[in-house]
């Protein structure tokens, strides 16, 4: 048993968790599984890549990290752009189905189509060849107990923690967060309480898209950027969202960490070819044993 699996699992889990927050929020408010959510991860990474390579300044690595300040700027802009893309996708596609009162399955299949189209667009523009934000080599730091992590990896864990805390505070302390929770529980009553449900839906898409983009930039920095990077994460994202309990942000991140750790330990114990199966196994077990998830609430 290698303690390094713990670090690898946490890092993979942090990215899954960030993506799963968007899945859990859109699911709890719009009541459908958005299969296109993984594409926001990939689009976020490519937006950042396009910005970094077009502007081409601020590329010299900062301190112990492998990237320059331009990537930080690009990551923020990519989050905003991807949030915008998510709002646009809803406006062009899902809003029209909602106004017609379409069945959930139609929304799900439409999201599948959107996923393919968005991914194909990336392959068309950027080709399917993997690309990297940086070619810098990083020396891993010893953390004790046989564990090592690169400064980039440690920074990404810290950024994830800050983002999750931020989203949690937004949901629990701000007016828009209260409105999101209200719409998630009872959209009709929310309207009667004066909540503009359409505005809340736009916020949810924006927030979910932005967080997915952050996960994409991190994944691109730590692993690589390729058009399938988000799609391949789809199953772990759903496993994490359901494991944590639909609608729960702390649940999504906790679910993400658990799925990430399970994957990492599975690689360690039974072999890398089983990694992708872990999401399925976790999802199946949760649905059998605790369908409402770890932090999910049973409807009263």
């Amino acid at each position, binding site marked *: 048993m290698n303690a390094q699996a713990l670090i690898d699992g946490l890092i993979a889990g942090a990215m899954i968790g960030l993506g799963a927050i968007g899945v859990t929020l859109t699911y709890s408010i719009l009541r459908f599984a958005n299969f296109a959510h993984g594409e926001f991860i990939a689009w976020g990474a490519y937006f950042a890549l396009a910005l970094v390579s077009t502007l081409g300044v601020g590329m010299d690595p900062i301190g112990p990290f492998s990237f320059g300040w331009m990537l930080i700027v690009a990551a923020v802009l990519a989050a905003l752009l991807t949030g915008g893309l998510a709002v646009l996708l809803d406006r062009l596609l899902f809003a029209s189905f909602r106004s017609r009162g379409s069945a959930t399955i139609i929304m799900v299949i439409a999201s599948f189509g959107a996923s393919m189209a968005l991914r194909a667009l990336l392959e068309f523009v950027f080709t399917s060849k993997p690309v990297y934000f940086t070619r810098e080599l990083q020396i891993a730091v010893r953390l004790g107990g046989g564990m090592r992590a690169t400064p980039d990896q440690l920074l990404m864990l810290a950024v994830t923690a800050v983002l999750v805390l931020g989203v949690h505070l937004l949901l629990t302390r701000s007016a828009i967060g*209260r409105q999101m929770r209200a719409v998630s529980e*009872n959209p009709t*009553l*929310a309207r*009667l309480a*004066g*909540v503009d*449900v359409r505005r809340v839906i736009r916020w949810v898409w924006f927030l979910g898209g932005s967080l997915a983009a952050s996960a994409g930039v991190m994944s691109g920095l730590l692993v690589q950027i390729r058009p399938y990077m988000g799609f391949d994460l789809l199953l772990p994202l759903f496993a994490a969202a359901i494991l944590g309990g639909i609608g729960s942000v702390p649940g999504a991140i906790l679910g993400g960490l658990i799925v990430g750790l399970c994957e990492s330990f599975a690689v360690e114990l039974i072999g890398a070819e089983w990694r992708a199966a872990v999401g399925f196994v976790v999802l199946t077990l949760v649905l059998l044993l605790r369908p409402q998830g770890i932090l999910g609430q049973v409807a*009263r």
Partner: protein
Amino acid sequence: MTPVHPSVVLRTSALVAGYEPDLPIVKGVDLAVERGDFLVILGPNGAGKSTLVKAIAGLVPIHGGTIALEDEDITARAAHRLVGAGLAFVPQTENVFTTLSIDENLKLCAGVLPAALRAERIEAAYAMFPDLAARRAMAAGGLSGGQRQMLATARALLIEPRVIILDEPSAGLSPKLVGEVFETLARVNATGVTIVLVEQNVRAGLGAAKSALVLADGRVVHRGPAAGLADDPALGEMFLGRHAPQGWAA
């Protein structure tokens, strides 16, 4: 054009509403609620009572006629914009956010008010319902049926509405709690708030209200003072048969 009566708060003219355009449930209702009135809407099952008030609240599609709040035309206005205009609606079931705390339930609704007024109105609501004040941080899902009704009413009153509409607030409550709910409503009405109430519990409804409106098959079959109506034999007939009895104007 009917001249606008200054004391009428809520008026519907020839209102036709229903979930499907070719299946109207409310079939041309004229309603005029005077300021300060406590109106109870009665009628047999399927008469269209709930549909009528839901249509006024913007929850059911309107296929004809108009709705006005004082001199403002609010026909087909989005539900979330009616709250700001001063129309509060309390649905029959699921009328509080169970996953939000009591305080959050009130803060959510205070969102339509100017920022400077919010804290003051929430405190006023707590003053009116001390039971709620003692449990501010508690999730509303933990409240009893009567307390939920109280919170739902407090939530609606927060905006100091011109009219508050309640859809069967007594549904599912014990007789003792029904009495409490109607006492609370009478207290609210005494402060000058106009109340429109849909009620299945005829005696309790008539006991609390000042005026009554009886619907049958989507149409108004009787309107008048609430007092004495409970003993009117025609009312019993109304609920057994579905048609307007002799002597009552349809």
